[in-house]
């Protein structure tokens, strides 16, 4: 199933999302900057051209002198050169004596007949065109003339508008260049940040479907979580596939011999004419069949345990409950009705992080072994020993020989299989369970007999 990366149902790519987010941010920022720049440009243009206007009005006011008892204006060219700095704007000027008598310049009504202050700026129309005006007053107190002369100067707004727009445009050009640079940088950064993801995607796409080895974990922390989860998942899958493969091969191996033996016995039985001997063969056949059934039970239980230790959630549990459960189920009375089985547990809880079913199965197998191969009274118990939590079974016999002990706990034992018995398998289950929960299986002779212990790291009891 080596597919491309285009998976239906996938939402928009992260890269596109981030880039469109950055773009939207820049656009909003640009709009705000444009408004701000225009407001600023207008204020700046108004301020600078108001100064020109006032300068020109002052020049004209300075040029007023009293000659023969009347104010006379020697209109200064400089004032108009100043106003001509706004090259395309029309000019209004009017100089009025006391009582509004026109001395020079425009006649007719003033755009703002009653100036409130000196100088006073105001907006008004100049022949259908918006314009800005300033009025200022100059007082004369001379022997021959006394009174106020007002100077009104106005100018249309072309240069102001142009300046405001020019400032806005310049600001926007700068902002646009900055924005584009920022966007390019963002694309670059995002591309770099996304690279590990793309590499992982490429690795996954190019991976052999049967390859369950862990992926390269040299990735950023955020992605490492994902890769870690995936690696754990693959490892479990790998273990389970391996377990399944083992189970199948074990089962095939274990069953081949007994089933062949059964077939031979059955053939013998059908060919036997002597009733007594046929009876004898049938009895053997029966025993073999039962033993085969037990073997199958154990193999299934082992497969179950191996599966559970991998898949089941670990919970906090008390080993005393496990021991109690096994004793109270009274399965051992079916196997060995005449044997004495004793439960030995203390007051103190023996807590571990594990799976109840797996531990129960392991303990049941150890108990079965003790009943089958051990001797005398069998004791089952759970106890804390330092930092270890122990679940144990002890019989009063001498235990298996050193040679057997050495081989014991392998996945299966040829001897056990060949005789249709399963001590090895039981031990192997117990060992697998112990190891799955971070512990070990300890087999040792004691003063009373032989003891099998599932020793796990103890969990601090939480109160």
């Amino acid at each position, binding site marked *: 199933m080596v597919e491309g990366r285009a998976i239906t149902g996938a939402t928009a790519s992260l890269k596109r999302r981030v880039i469109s987010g950055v773009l939207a941010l820049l656009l909003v920022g640009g709009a705000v900057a444009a408004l701000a720049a225009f407001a600023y440009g207008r204020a700046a243009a108004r301020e600078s051209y108001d100064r020109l206007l006032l300068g020109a009005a002052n020049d004209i006011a300075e040029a007023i002198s009293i000659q023969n008892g009347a104010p006379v204006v020697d209109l200064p060219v400089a004032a108009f050169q100043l106003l001509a700095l706004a090259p395309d704007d*029309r000019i209004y000027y009017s100089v009025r004596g006391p009582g509004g008598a026109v001395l020079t310049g425009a006649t007719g009504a003033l755009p703002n007949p009653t100036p409130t202050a000196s100088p006073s700026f105001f907006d008004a129309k100049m*022949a259908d065109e918006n314009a800005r005006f300033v009025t200022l007053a100059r007082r004369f107190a001379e022997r021959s003339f006394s009174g106020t002369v007002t100077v009104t100067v106005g100018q249309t707004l072309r240069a102001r508008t142009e300046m405001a727009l020019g400032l806005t445009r310049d600001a926007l050009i700068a902002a646009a260049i900055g924005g584009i640079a920022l966007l390019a940088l963002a694309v670059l950064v995002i591309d770099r940040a996304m690279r590990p993801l793309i590499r992982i995607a490429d690795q996954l796409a190019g991976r052999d479907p049967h390859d369950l080895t862990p992926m390269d974990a040299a990735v950023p922390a955020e992605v490492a979580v994902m890769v870690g989860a995936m690696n754990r998942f693959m490892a479990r899958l790998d273990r389970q596939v391996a377990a399944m493969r083992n189970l199948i091969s074990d089962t095939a191996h274990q069953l081949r011999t007994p089933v062949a033996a059964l077939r031979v016995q059955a053939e013998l039985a059908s060919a036997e004419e002597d009733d007594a001997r046929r009876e004898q063969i049938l009895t053997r056949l029966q025993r073999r069949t039962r033993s085969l059934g037990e073997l199958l039970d154990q193999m299934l239980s082992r497969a179950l345990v191996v599966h559970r230790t991998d898949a089941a959630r670990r919970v906090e549990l008390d080993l005393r409950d496990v021991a109690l459960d096994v004793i109270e189920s009274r399965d051992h009375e079916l196997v060995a009705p005449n044997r004495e089985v004793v439960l030995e547990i203390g007051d103190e809880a023996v807590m571990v992080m594990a799976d109840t079913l797996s531990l129960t199965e392991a303990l049941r197998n150890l108990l079965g072994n003790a009943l089958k191969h051990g001797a005398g009274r069998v004791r089952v118990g759970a106890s804390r020993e330092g930092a270890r939590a122990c679940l144990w079974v002890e019989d009063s016999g001498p235990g298996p020989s050193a040679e057997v002990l050495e081989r014991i706990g392998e996945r299966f034992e040829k001897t056990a299989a060949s005789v249709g018995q399963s001590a090895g398998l039981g031990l192997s289950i117990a060992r697998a369970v112990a190891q799955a929960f971070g512990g070990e299986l300890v087999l040792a002779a004691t003063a009373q007999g032989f003891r099998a212990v599932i020793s796990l790291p103890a969990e601090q009891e939480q109160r």
Partner: protein
Amino acid sequence: MTRFAILVSALIAAALPAMAQQDGPEARARFGPADGPAMVLRSTTDITVLGPTLEDFTARNPGIAVDYEQWGSNALYDISQRECEAGQSRADAVLSSAVHQMVDLVNRGCAGSYRSTASAGLPAARRWRDQLWGVTQEPAVIIYNTHLVPPQDVPHTRFALLDLMRRAEGRYQGKIATYEIEASGLGYLFAFEDSLEASTFGALMEGFSRADAVATCCSAEIIKGVSQGEYAIAYNVLGSYVNARRDPNVGVVWPQDYTLMLSRGYMIPKSAGQASAAQRLLDFLLSPRGQEDLRTAGLLLNGEPEDSATPASALHTIAISPVLLVALDRQKRAQFIARWRAAFGR
């Protein structure tokens, strides 16, 4: 019709132009097809000078006829102002040498806007607001009678002219002429520009006063006077009119200290009925072909000054800008004319 009636109508016909000179066009002419509507062009330029250019224009733009009216500058300014205030312009285009008056008309909001590649290509000093365009370039020159003025006396600068006027022997006493600035809008404009240009102007006035200079009206009369020996030297004469005559008795000097360059102002009134024809005429006048026509007519003398000693940097175009409004100011003009009168002893 009786002989009496014929005589009366002849008298009326003779009297009409003389009356018209006061408040109407001095002359009229029509270019292009005789029938049908025509755009009205009012100008201060002589029909004979601008005629060939307009012939060329109408020949290249069939369907457009031009009614040409020749006006005196002050009368043209008055009627344009009146028509502007009435909001009804009979003229579709106005072309005047008194550019300060044209600037004032535009400043009053009387002009319509137009922009084309040709008009936008004009230098800044020759256009204003896309409403007024300087289509010609004509120098203000000093002319002299070649018989009365020996070569060593020919004034190539204003300083030389001053020296000439200060001479004691009185050879040029009463023989120097210039425009009467009260009667001639152009003369006033030149004198005003002179007053802005350099400190020589005060000395010049004083010189005119000492030499009993004559202030008189009209380019044609001044040039004729110089040609016939009535005047030896005339100051600030429009070079294009001198050139048009090609008179061997008249020598021309482009003052080397600075030569004022006049650019006639072309304006399309806001209420013009045939603005598009007026715009085409403007584009034609600014086109290479139109400029060639104007050059032939002597209205475009920016190329190589005939007196090649005048450097190009000495050519001062009278900038079409609101600064010219100062020239029109009532009190400024009164003060200026009072000063002028004092110099000429009126």
